[in-house]
């Protein structure tokens, strides 16, 4: 399942010297800048202590796993561009997404190149982060002048890590959810510190809902108007080191309650985002929330053109972009979905903007990372595996799709939720994206289904 391998020339370090501390993050960029230079940022941290706290929490997220699982991937990816450094990571189980944004106020240095890279988070470096004092100056370097690619045998590399496909899949699903989210609650500093106090001890197997009870945030097991559904709320304990430090906490959720996000404004250009999947055993990589938008294939040159445009602009608002370029909002959505399916786009809740990650532009990833879409196309490849039975009065099409040992009845179009008789749909009722049968029906009879 390992899709990409990356290697570091030397480990990341936090070194102490007479002139100050230097945090050097070793990087390996899959899409390295031309000329081989892979140093993205060099400069001081305005509040090194706070940044170190954020990075420590990020390290906790990548080291965490909430389902029984062995391997832990410890290396976040960093995107440098538009005056920001964004450190992103997933928990090993892929159900928690975390991002530390260091804005212009938090950085005092120069961006040598825009790009996205993996950075080495090794244990001694993470331990050393805990030692950064409040008044200590720290210089940050992301990447180094030389990157040794894993090529010939015998190349000296400190660590070699395989980047699972599910990270790219997870990035796709997360940005899809973040872009849909609405702000539900804003907590003050004191309320943020109280957030975890009402959390039942141990792992919560059932959904909890975050509500404000009087001035106090409480997690309750029953939903109500205005409550935010938080699946596997014990995962929020990852934030216990940061919550007392934040100036305010904004809580976001998707309208259907399938994901939630907690945005900690730490002050001084530091912001930490923690997004949770709907349930502990649901990794973001398994969500199919972008499949509907990926259905209609856009011309390759459109996607390539958008890629070039966004690559240059680095951040953009989809609505404004559609207005500026006189494009249908649906087309912009599909463009965004196609690019994010390759892991190229992320979403910033604060500015309501997409941001660009410089990863390789590989169109084949769209299908490769979306097996349901791939399987739906395979169904269409056979002449009679997808058959139209009829179109109802409201434009609702009834379709038969071949399944294992049975034909599935699928209803699509007519402005209602598509339905199927398969086990996936019965189990999830469309909450985790459409099944391959629905996708196949929509792909073949899209015109009738509209």
């Amino acid at each position, binding site marked *: 399942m390992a899709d990409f391998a990356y290697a570091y020339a030397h480990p990341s370090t936090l070194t102490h010297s007479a002139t100050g501390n230097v945090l050097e993050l070793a990087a390996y960029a899959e899409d390295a800048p031309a000329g081989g230079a892979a140093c993205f940022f060099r400069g001081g941290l305005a509040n090194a202590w706070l940044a170190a706290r954020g990075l420590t929490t990020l390290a906790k997220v990548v*080291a965490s796993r909430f389902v029984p699982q062995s391997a832990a991937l410890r290396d976040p990816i960093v995107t440098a561009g538009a005056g920001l450094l964004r450190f992103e990571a997933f928990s090993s189980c892929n159900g928690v997404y975390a991002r530390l944004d260091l804005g212009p106020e938090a950085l005092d240095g120069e961006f040598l190149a825009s790009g996205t890279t993996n950075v080495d988070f090794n244990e001694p470096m993470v331990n050393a982060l805990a*030692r*950064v004092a409040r008044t200590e100056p720290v210089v940050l370097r992301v990447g180094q002048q030389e990157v040794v690619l894993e090529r010939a045998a015998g190349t000296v590399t400190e660590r070699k890590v395989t980047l699972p496909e599910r990270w790219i899949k997870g990035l796709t699903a997360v940005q899809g959810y973040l872009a849909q989210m609405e702000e539900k609650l804003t907590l003050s500093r004191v309320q943020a510190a109280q957030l975890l106090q009402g959390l039942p001890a141990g792992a919560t197997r059932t959904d909890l809902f975050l509500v404000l009870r009087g001035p106090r945030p409480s997690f309750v097991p029953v939903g109500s108007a205005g409550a935010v559904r938080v699946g596997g709320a014990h995962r929020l304990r990852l934030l216990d080191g940061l919550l007392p430090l934040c100036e305010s906490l904004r809580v976001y959720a998707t309208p259907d309650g399938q994901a939630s996000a907690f945005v900690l404004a730490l002050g001084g250009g530091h912001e930490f985002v923690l997004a949770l999947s709907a349930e502990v055993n649901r990794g973001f990589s398994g969500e199919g929330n972008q499949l509907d938008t990926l259905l209609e294939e856009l011309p390759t040159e459109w996607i390539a053109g958008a890629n070039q445009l966004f690559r240059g602009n680095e951040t953009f608002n989809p609505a404004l972009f559609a207005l500026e370029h006189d494009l249908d909002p649906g087309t912009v959505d599909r463009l965004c979905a196609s690019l994010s399916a390759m892991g190229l786009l992320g979403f910033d809740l604060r500015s309501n903007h997409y941001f660009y990650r410089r990863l390789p532009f590989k169109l084949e990833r769209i299908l490769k990372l979306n097996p349901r879409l791939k399987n739906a196309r395979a169904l269409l490849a056979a002449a009679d595996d997808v058959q139209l039975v009829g179109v109802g009065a409201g434009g609702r099409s009834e379709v038969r799709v071949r399944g294992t040992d049975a034909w599935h009845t699928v209803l699509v179009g007519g402005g209602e939720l598509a339905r199927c008789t398969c086990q996936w749909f019965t189990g999830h009722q469309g909450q985790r994206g459409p099944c391959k049968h629905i996708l196949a029906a929509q792909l073949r009879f899209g015109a009738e289904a509209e």
Partner: protein
Amino acid sequence: MSAAADTFEQFIRRGTAAELTPFLLALDKSDIVPVRTRAKSLHKELDEYVKRADGHWSRLMQPEQDLMLFLAGIATYSQKEAFGRSLGSRHYLRTDARFRIERDPLPWVWAVLRHTRPAWLTEWLVRNHRSNPWTTPDFDTLQALAAEGLLNPTPTLLAYAAARQLDIVGGELDTAFALRQQQAEGKKKLNALQVAMWADLVARWPALAADSPGQPSFRALLLDALRSNAALLGTGLPLLFEFDTPADSTVAYCHSIKPVEDLRWLDVLPVLVESGHLDRARLLTDCLLALRRDFRRPLLTWFKELFLTLQPTLAERLARQNELVELLAHPLPQVINFALDQFKELWTHPDFEPATLLLYADGLMTRPDLKTGLKNLFGGLDKLLKTNPALTPEVARLHTAALAHPDAGVQERAAKGLAVLLGAKKPLLDASAAADTIVELDGLGELLGAPARALLAAWLTAAPALAAETAVYAPRAEFTPDISDATAIAPVADWHELLFLTGQALQPDQPEAQERWLDGLLRLRTQYPPDYAQQLRPYLLQALPYLLKGKTEPETLELLRNFNHGQGRNGQHELLLALLLGWYGGFAQPQVARVRLAAQHQLHPDPLLALARQRLLAAEARLRAGGAALPLLSTPSHAPHWVAPSALLARLLAYEAAGAAPDAADLALALGRLAWNAPAEAETARPQLRELRHAGLRELLGWLLAPARATPPLPVLKSPDKSLLQKATSRFSQWVSGEAPAPPTLDDALPWLWAVAARTRCPHAALPALAALADYPGLAAPWVPTWDVRTRTEIYKQSWNQKEPERTYHYHELAVDTATPAPPPSPLLLYSLHARLPQKDHTYFWALAEDYRFLLSLLPNNPAPLRWHLLRSAFRTSDGYSEEHSLLSKQLHALLADGPAYDDSASTLLAVGLLYNLPTGRALAWEVVLAAAANGRLVPAALGAALGRLLASAYAPVLRLAEALPAARGISPATDDALRQLLDALLPELPAEPLRNTAKLLAAYADLRPRDGSSVPAVVADKLQIWQATGSLKKAAVALLAE
């Protein structure tokens, strides 16, 4: 055809490993591929299991053949084939004595390995290790393989093997002792392999051969073996600290000598240190470095114990203060607590450097998983300040940060420290630092618990006086169900909705979807499309995947024709599945009757399921008849499970119009679900009663739908003749179990339907008129059992433990009193069915676990009997498993819905929920309390009394209740008053000898008391008088009495 391959096959079929090995060593290069191909095909052929004449299954391949094919694999396989399945057993490189005593394959394996030197060996061993670590060769074999250049040094394998070496050597010694004993006793002669092994073992431990009585012990010989293994000491053991190994669980046992002796690495390593074979300083440092890693928790504990076993001196700990400090960044509290413990004597030492520790401490202050550790840390900081007052601002900042900790105890300790720093006569903080601290403190004021607030009151800005808003809580007097358009249940619209609803109806315990589906199935009988069976097939496959996978439609029909539902945990799901099977087959064959609800060992069906089954039998009969089917009388018309009176009347009139008799079970359930006290609906329905032709039914419904405020007297019910009663009871029982085809007539059932109607309308009243029917709980008097908590004592003998040969355990179990088992006079008596069931452990538990929401949906007017049955069946103790928790959750969710004030059964179950061991269960119960206080369902006195009784009898610790009370306070004045009333009722129930954490209850009670100068109730005052003699409660008790 290759001659070599044929010869090879002959060896495999009839030869031995000893004969095959020379053949493989002499194999020509050109013969390798044919032999490899033949080896694979032979492996495939022999790797089959066949049924023997005695009926047992056995593998065709004999052990010798397995070994030979393995040897052939080493000699001829490429990497791809070696990593496949056809290489056979992966155990042949194991050298432990207990394995070799059966047969010793090693000489052949080594001979072939040395000859062919497979390049894939390292990777093959690593893969095997990953999939099954037990296949890993022992440490010495790995070293030997590496020494001969057959294996690349692989630290993962070496580390694992080093950990297992203790067990391997111990096993060899154990075998040696056993062989020696065997020879000494002379009962059984050693075989050739055993003789060879004995010679080998004696060569390693010559002392074993001596006959002298002073022979070295198992322990001494084992230690000798380890001490003499330089590679293990120099290379292997240091790897234990770098990899996740089984070092924590490896034990060397000697079973041959009694008593059984065992040795662990924790026993062995300190001895090796003492004898100078291991470096003490390195071992201590390695332990601390290993503790930094994210190893398994038991392995981390092992490193911790090893460090402590070595008893490091103060100087040694001081020399490792950096390593200890780095442990403070660990995610596990056990590691942090350990590290903080090691600092205990270092705080005041002149060589102790606190700067780095203080930086790390910063990240610990709000960690909710640290409590005791933080208190230790505060103790250390206090000591530190005495020797290093310059650190006061930093320490004050840490104390302030800890005030945001969720634990009140930690807060209190931090507040105490901070109060000392801020309140010192001679200022310890400069003015600016003190001002910063106070500003910081003010921002945290809201987070502080009462004790911390009291300690820091002098520096906190006084909170603005709250509006003196008070309220008096009183439970609601009556309840009217919401029967309106807003709660009306939309019937299934069309075929497609029915089809997709099928999947949801087959999900466990989803009564809402199931009732709609059932109704749709009947109502849309004439609208099924011609190919409906084909469309249903995916759902059949989902329900019976093991049976129908890969089957054609005719095969499916044949299988379903003979399908047996078994007699296990049949419930509503199986009944509906049977209906689906019948539907798929065009209702050609009745399926519901095949679902038996027989009692099995510890699996008794709930008696209400028999009524549900009969209802479905009636529905299936109508569906089989074809044409438009009449609806079920008991299908809910309004959420959650109400049958509106007008809907019931309309259905009854439709039955009369069609000349169909209502099914008695269906009618009984319809009466149980009837929203008789929805005034507007009842008023609409009453005039329609005149249209009913059946006089008895008209009279019954007239009584049931009479205005809620004036319940008319019950008519005089005719006492059934005793023999007739017996006959009827017998017939009812047969009918419910599906044995007798003819259901009772409406007239037969009418007296019992009167009893159902009466208890539907008056769940708690005495109804002497019903005594005429029978003397049974739930008729003349409601079934309200008594309960108490009994202490069960069990004594366990533990002969192996000389210090404590007996251990006594006390269990506190809730018991609901139940009369002698006896069947009810009629299975239609919804509210009596559970009263006198035979009681055995968990007999009815699974039926409740599977179908509780459905069962509850049958009794919306009077669920008390089912609740008592639940209490009796599932909550004997407060420490349940996930099934009990799931049941509790279902019950608590049901209590969240709107309804009348809680009766005793509901209050008792709610009390159980508030004291349950799982925090999520308690959180849900608190949610119920708060919702019930808001809608008037809560009866604080009953809940408080039940809680008090449960706590007093040690059903659960007081802390479970007390820790949640502060969070429930201050939500609204009415809630505060309800909680106060609850505690008013609870406290008098507690014993005179105060329970642990009673002080926390009193603190919460004091917070909830109204500030109007009123005194506590007399019963509470009596208890406080007693408690004020106890030191820990004196202050709180006196303060409350003084109000």
